[in-house]
């Protein structure tokens, strides 16, 4: 089997991390790269790929072994996501969302909730969805209006969640809802299995990319959620959501590094083959400089990402570092994928080559898990307040 993407020379902490990265690359070459073009063209969610990755143990890597996870540091988990993203963004983005969706139970769930939920969540057979945004509130998450009323042993939830990755294919939904008054203090986190009465999913959004990854509104019409599935106390929801997003941002940054790497690889391969003025175009210094800048920025983004990951792994504060990594890596991916189209010229603008798809896919990374403007707010506020 051909290595579809040139390997990266990594410094990894353990021999099992090395074997894990080799497994990720092999799975990505054989199972992701081969499926991506057709699935993106037809908008088909690759559930069978998630099942395969679940069997291989790749859907729960960063969580403790004691609760069924892989016990891997973020430093390693994120590089696995990068390997996958270099072949097919839909899959590692989905893993990142799934890992994000498991976070509330792992960090805030009671022992009883962990025993009940984690075996299925981390067992590799289910995927999650994370429902924070609403049609009129994305960045301003504290303004969400989906209402949950306590009624005996249940919460009745009414409202609309928007831009939900895996809506309709997820097995469980984290719902950030309002149980109290206005503002961040009134928000609570609930966990609802798919099939919850009153929970339904709208038609998927028609997007400019990532067509194989369904995004849709989740409609809550008096949806009945067992009060035993409230994660944390009433009013803890906003803090849970923000903590989850810090880690989620690292996942998006890793996806961006991988996507850009896939684009650079395609650009280099084309430039070595394509002849103009009697020689391969890669021989022209103007083009070499472009490739050199792409390569350098990918490495810079990876370094920033791994620095943030190692801070998290060491138990140090990492919110600002995660915001920097997400901001830089996703802006980088937009620029590198755009340049990759330029390297391929007219061919790059056609669907005969994957780079136009990479360019469309890169755009969403500047928007999700906090727009890049929000990342700048996070970084800028820290500078302003010291």
């Amino acid at each position, binding site marked *: *089997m*051909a*290595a579809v993407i040139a*390997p990266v020379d990594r410094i990894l902490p353990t*021999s*099992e991390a090395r*074997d*894990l990265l*080799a*497994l990720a690359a*092999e*799975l990505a070459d054989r199972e992701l790269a081969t499926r991506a073009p057709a699935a993106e063209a037809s908008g088909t969610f690759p559930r069978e790929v998630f099942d*395969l990755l679940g*069997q*291989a*143990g*790749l859907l729960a*890597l960063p969580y403790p072994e004691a609760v069924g996870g*892989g016990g891997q540091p973020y430093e390693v988990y994120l590089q696995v996501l990068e390997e996958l993203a270099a072949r097919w963004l839909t899959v590692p983005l989905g893993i990142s969302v799934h890992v994000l969706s498991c976070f509330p139970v792992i960090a805030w769930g009671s022992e009883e909730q962990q025993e009940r939920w984690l075996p299925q969540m981390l067992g590799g057979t289910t995927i999650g969805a994370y429902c924070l945004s609403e049609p009129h509130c994305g960045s301003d998450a504290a303004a969400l209006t989906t209402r949950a009323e306590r009624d005996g042993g249940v919460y009745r939830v009414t409202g609309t969640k928007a831009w939900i990755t895996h809506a309709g294919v997820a097995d469980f939904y984290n719902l950030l809802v309002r149980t109290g008054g206005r503002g961040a203090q009134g928000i609570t986190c609930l966990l609802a299995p798919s099939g919850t009465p009153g929970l339904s999913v709208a038609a998927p959004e028609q997007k400019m990319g990532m067509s194989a990854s369904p995004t849709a509104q989740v409609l809550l019409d008096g949806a009945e959620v067992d009060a035993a599935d409230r994660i944390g106390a009433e009013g803890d929801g906003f803090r849970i959501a923000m903590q989850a997003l810090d880690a989620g941002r690292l996942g998006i940054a890793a996806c961006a590094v991988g996507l850009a790497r896939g684009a650079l690889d395609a650009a280099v391969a084309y430039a070595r083959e394509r002849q103009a003025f009697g020689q391969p175009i890669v021989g022209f210094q103007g083009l070499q400089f472009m490739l050199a800048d792409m390569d350098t920025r990918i490495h810079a983004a990876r370094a920033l990402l791994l620095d943030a990951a190692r801070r998290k792994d060491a138990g140090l504060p990492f919110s600002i570092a995660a915001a920097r990594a997400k901001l830089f890596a996703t802006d980088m991916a937009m620029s590198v994928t755009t340049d990759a189209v330029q390297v391929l010229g007219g061919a790059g603008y056609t669907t005969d080559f994957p780079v136009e798809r990479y360019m469309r896919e890169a755009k969403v990374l500047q928007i999700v898990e906090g727009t890049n403007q929000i990342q700048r707010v996070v970084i800028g506020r820290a500078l302003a307040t010291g």
Partner: protein
Amino acid sequence: MREVDSETMKIVVCVKQVPDSWAEKTLRPSDNTLDRESVDAVMNELDEYAVEEALRLQEAQGGEVVVLSMGPSQATDTIRKALSMGADAGVHVVDDGLHGSDAVATSLALAKAIEAQGADLVIFGSESTDARMSVVPAMVAERLGLPQLTFSSSVAVDGGTVRTNRVTEYGYDVVEAPLPALVSVVEKINEPRYPSFKGIMAAKKKPVQTLGLADLGVAAGEVGLGAAWSVVAEAAARPPKAKGTIVADDGSGGVAIADYLSAQKFI
């Protein structure tokens, strides 16, 4: 014939680390042997099928799967991959004196190592993607005095007997032999599993025995480049592909193509 208790059956799978089959391969200028250090190394693809078949036989009826590889120190990666797929233990035959061994010498070292293991069933992939000779399984069987059931597209063990479908040009033969025996498999036989992360973690704790020539009782003069029956005298890079011939069809295109094919002795 030896009665084999299937629950204690010992299967030895021979695996080889090879350069990634799509990689540009070069010879070392010093001795015209394959440069194994400059390319990515992977488990020979057909050997993955051999490991898979061993694991399936073990899952069906118990026993032990030992993976055996002869190769330089980095071949431990290939042994570890087989262990992470599920094999129980590894044996690594590694010795500087083995460098440049031909198929005859390789079969000697492998036979000695298998003999020491006391295998009931030996499984090989039917060829390696680097040497592509397909002779080592037969040579090992001959050295060990074992029946050889090569090019198998299915393997079944029943008591003290192994039965395979042996792929031929016209279909397959059903062949049967008493255990112990040696089998080589083709890619039709199964779909190899991927290692899992759990398997990777478990592999770290599995025993891997390292054996040199002295441990095997093989004399240095019997193996290595010096003992090879043939040597590569010189080598040249493959010439670049010539430009294809373009026939402009002015009505006589068909004739021109037929003339071309005839000149190339295709028709």
